[in-house]
C-alpha cells in the first residue's frame, strides 16, 4: 500500500496522458494499416484500452471512484461489441470465404 501512494507522488499524471495518447495512436494506425478485419478489431480493442487506462488514471489522481466504475461499463460494452462483431465476421467468412475488408464492398455506393 505504501508503494502505491509512492506511485502518485513520483509519476506525474501527464505521463499517463502521453502513454494513452501513444497507445490510442497505435490503434488508429492499426485500423488504417491492416486489411484483415480481425486485426482491425484488435486495434479497436487497443484504443478502448488506452481510454480505459486514462480514465483509471484520472480516477486515481482525483481521488474519485466514479472513473473506475466507468471503466467497468466500458469493459461491458467492449465485451458485447466483440461478441457481436466476431459473430458477424464468422458469418461473413462463411459467405465470402475471406476477412479481407477490400472484398467487402457490397454496400459501397
Amino acid at each position, binding site marked *: *500500500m505504501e*508503494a*502505491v*501512494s*509512492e*506511485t*502518485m507522488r*513520483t*509519476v506525474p499524471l*501527464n*505521463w499517463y*496522458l*502521453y*502513454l494513452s*495518447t*501513444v*497507445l*490510442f*495512436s*497505435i*490503434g*488508429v*494506425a492499426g485500423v*488504417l*494499416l*491492416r*486489411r*484483415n478485419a*480481425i*486485426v482491425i*478489431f*484488435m*486495434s479497436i*480493442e*487497443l484504443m478502448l484500452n488506452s481510454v*480505459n*487506462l486514462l480514465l483509471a*488514471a*484520472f*480516477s*486515481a*489522481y482525483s*481521488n474519485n*471512484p466514479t472513473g*473506475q*466504475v466507468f*471503466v*467497468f*461499463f466500458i*469493459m461491458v*460494452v467492449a*465485451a*458485447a461489441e*466483440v*461478441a*457481436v462483431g*466476431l*459473430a458477424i465476421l*464468422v458469418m461473413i467468412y462463411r459467405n465470402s470465404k475471406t476477412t479481407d475488408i*477490400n472484398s467487402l464492398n457490397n454496400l459501397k455506393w
Partner: protein
Amino acid sequence: MSQYVFLFLSLLSVLCALSVIFAKNPIHSVLFLILCFFSIAGHYVLLNAQFLAIVHIIVYSGAIMVLFLFTVMLLNLNSTTEAHKPIAVKFAAVLSGGALMLVLLASFKTAEVHVATGAADMKMGLVKNLGQVLFKEFVLPFEISSILFIAAMVGAVILAKKELN
C-alpha cells in the same frame, strides 16, 4: 522506484501494441495483444485500482482474447492468407497515425491537469468501495448493461447460426 516500474510497463505495452499491428500472422497479433493487456493490468495495480486489474485480466485476457483466438483458428487465418495493402498506403497510414499522435501530444503538453490534494484514499480501488458506488449511484446503468449483454449474446448466437434451408 515506482516510476521505473511505470516506465518498464509503458515500454512493454507500447512495444506489444506496435507488434500487434505489425505482426504478419494474426495469431501473433492476438498473443501480443494479450501481453499488452497484462501490462495494462500492471498499470492498474500501480494506480491503486486492484479490482479493475483483476476484472481486466479476467474479461480481456480470459474471455475476449480467447474469443479472438478461437475465431482466428476457426477461420484458419495465417500469414500466407494475409492480404497486404500497397506500400504507399501503409506509409500513409503510419504517417497519419503519427501525425495524430503528434497533435494530441502537443495539445496535452500544455494541458493543465487537476490532481486532488490531500491524502489519497488507499481503499478506493477495492471491491468493497467500488461495489458501494456501483450499487448505490450506478444501479440503473448496471442493470441496463445486463440487458445489453443478453441482447448481444442472443444476437451473436443468431448471427453465427447456420441458416436451415
